[in-house]
């Protein structure tokens, strides 16, 4: 079993009001088969034994699907490996004696709770604003009543694989949530079931995104590059198109439209 030693510089912050700082740790005899979070478990276990508070970080499924884990590792959201969440990053991607900087996902809309844990509830509020299809339980017709072209269904699925982790926001210089919002719109708008609410959805979700304090999109594409599920940048173009369409269609009624002449 191959092992490595690392120097860690980890962000510690006792609460939202604290300024925060980097703290140095040594991680020794780390098996290269470990996951990144298992490496942090080892560091934490040593801290607990010294009756010191362990480093708080969010994690849950540890198989790359729940979107709970975060971390900016050496400047990259979810670390250096493309298309990978932090929990699926393994230590074989690091070299002996590397220095590793570990920081929280930073964004105005994601306030730090403690150490590496941030509050991402803004994403929930964006979904609550319009990220759904309005269908009450029991009112659905037979599932095969509406055929959906496989290509469309596949594209919808690809967008729906977003895990809501927030890496797109953390890596964007503007802290924009455009990729997250666009992925949800693409998922629903590409399906026949999503058509009736398509325009309202675009208006409501974008308005909520702005209200939460996320920045604007300047199309640099780093979000898509950092996305562990590799959501396509094309979804943002689709979102902009739908939003524009909806904004034009929903402009305040003019005298013309009221037939006032």
């Amino acid at each position, binding site marked *: 079993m191959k092992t490595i030693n690392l120097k860690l510089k980890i962000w510690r912050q006792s609460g939202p009001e604290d300024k925060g700082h980097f703290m140095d740790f040594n991680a020794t005899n780390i*098996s290269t*088969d*470990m996951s990144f*979070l*298992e490496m942090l*478990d*080892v560091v934490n*276990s040593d*801290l*607990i034994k010294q*009756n010191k*508070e*362990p480093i*708080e970080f969010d994690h*849950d*499924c*540890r*198989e790359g*699907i*729940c*979107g*709970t884990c975060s971390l900016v590792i050496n400047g990259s959201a979810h670390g250096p*490996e493309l*298309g*990978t969440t932090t929990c*699926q990053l*393994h230590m*074989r991607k690091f070299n002996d004696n590397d220095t590793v900087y570990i920081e929280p996902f930073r964004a105005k809309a994601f306030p730090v709770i403690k150490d590496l*844990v941030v509050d*991402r*509830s803004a*994403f*929930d509020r964006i*979904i*609550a*604003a319009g990220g*759904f*299809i309005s*269908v*009450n*339980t*029991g*009112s*659905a*017709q*037979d*599932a095969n009543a*509406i*055929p*959906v*072209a*496989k290509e469309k*269904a596949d594209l919808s*699925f690809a967008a*729906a694989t977003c*895990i*809501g982790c927030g890496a797109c926001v953390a890596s964007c210089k503007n802290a924009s949530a455009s990729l997250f919002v666009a992925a949800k719109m693409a*998922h629903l708008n590409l*399906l026949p*079931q999503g058509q009736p609410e398509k325009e309202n959805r675009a208006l409501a979700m974008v308005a909520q995104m702005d209200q939460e304090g996320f920045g604007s999109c300047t199309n640099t594409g780093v979000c898509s590059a950092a996305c562990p599920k590799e959501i396509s940048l094309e979804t943002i173009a689709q979102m902009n198109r739908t939003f524009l369409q909806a904004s034009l269609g929903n402009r305040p009624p003019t005298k013309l439209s009221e037939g006032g002449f």
Partner: protein
Amino acid sequence: MVKLDSKVPSGNIQDKWERHKFEMKLVNPANKRKHTVLVVGTGLAGASAAASLAELGYKVKVFCIQDSPRRAHSIAAQGGINAAKNYPNDGDSVWRLFYDTVKGGDFRAREANVYRLAQVSVNIIDQCVAQGVPFAREYGGLLDNRSFGGAQVSRTFYARGQTGQQLLLGAYQALMRQVGKGAVQLFSRREMLDLVLVDGKARGITARNLVSGEIESYSGDAVLLATGGYGNVYYLSTNAKNSNVTASWRCHKKGALFGNPCFTQIHPTCIPRSGDYQSKLTLMSESLRNDGRVWVPKAKDDKRHPAEIPESERDFYLERIYPSFGNLVPRDVASRQAKFRVDEGRGVGHTAEAVYLDFGDAIKRLGQEAISEKYGNLFQMYEKITGENPYKQPMRIFPAVHYTMGGLWVDYNLMSSIPGLHVLGEANFSDHGANRLGASALMQGLADGYFIIPYTLGNYLSSNKFESLNETHPAFIESKKQVSQKLMQLLSVKGKRTSDEIHRQLGQLMWEYVGMSRTKQGLQKVAKDIAGLREEFWKNVCVPGDANFKNSSLEHACRLADFLELGELMARDGLEREESCGGHFREEFQTADNEALRNDEKFCHVSAWEYKGVENSPLWQMHQEPLIFENVKLSQRSYK
């Protein structure tokens, strides 16, 4: 003595649910908003229940330990969801799904519940498609189905290898729609630590705010528990790290009976452990067994690279032993056979604790692209974790704890032995008997939440009177006090061992003695060992920090304290059940072919355990609910 009344309606099994729906009392639409319902857990069962109840007009408060309801562990389910749609025209029906589920569960589930599950399965698919769940489709645009472990028809709907994610997002979005409308109040990062009873009815919960550390009270007219299973009692399992038994366990200690705690599912296709630091195990969906062939070398201690072992020296043991089901035998059978191969010294990989799952033939037959289309994300995940490319060399797999069929006992209305406390999804014991079939967990979670509880809860609310009360009631104050005391006690031990170390030790004991095969001696020993470990925990655990702020060590220790009690109950239940059935394999009770040997005369019942309190020894008393099979004839399962 607790009276166990399953409340199964009389009449033909086909008509029970329809008639029951008609006979149940309704809540007047104007009165629905006067009832507050507390839903704990936001996985498939919790999210679907909360959304559906809010749509009906109830006031709903929903709680989850995660930072967002979308992260509940249902998200990680991979393979699919069963439904008796019979779209492929291959002979499926409600009756066949019912039959397969009862048989797959080795005749330890309640017939009427399972039949209802099969009935509503078809509505679930309709509902999910309407919500925009992007199930796999064929080129004609219609839904695709695949076959799944233990079934000979293709009744499984799927969304690549992430069906749970897509179904949960559907339920989560329905839930968030209600949050947006103000019909549901969402409390995330909250952990339920006690059930509050007033006049014997469940009237609220005590929860810890995991950010501020504050102990909070919430009152309502009914409590719905949808907090998942308890597989993490084994430390290593496919469950998420934060999955735990605490909410269920605290209800158990308040009087809710725990049904069949020893019924645990060990899933045959997981990525094997690589070292002692391993923090969890990762499942590879068993849909892989549709195209992968399981084998080990014929020779013992064969250290050759798999590519160097010719076909004639490979033992495709599932195909050999079970020619008609082959690689698709139910999970318990596949798991046990893998264990037997490893015990024989024919395990593979550096730990010799694995068997091969080989896609070589399927890739030759269908091409790499077709395999990637079906299983791409699973192959990718495997490569990330192991550093090996499964397109080039066979996967190494080994069984891991995956699902717990046991759980809080509920009647036909999903109500526990405490009036008002309803239990949904994996947290209850009801539908899977001693073994769950693949793609049936998602079905059950959504059946309970979308289509069963909205009816049965109404009946409970309209049949009972509710004294108006709020969080200042003495029962809430007392509960808060006790919860705080327990947390302070954990912090004050200041011992030498981390809760993680003690949890690993508990896990090893459970895996060794309450795992894939169990013996009387082993179970007796482990019950004592766990009691001893529990004592050590309370004397020697080290929990730094304090209770007034985010403290993950305290959260973990608090959950472990409950696992240390549950583990003992699981051993006692396994000891009491002197037969083998489904996932419960007692070495003393097996056929000549090493298959589970049931004892229907003595054990055709649900074992429902009542907690008697620390002043009593033993801590539990067992009650029985007899299981009556009127529609599916009790038979020895055979997959040959």
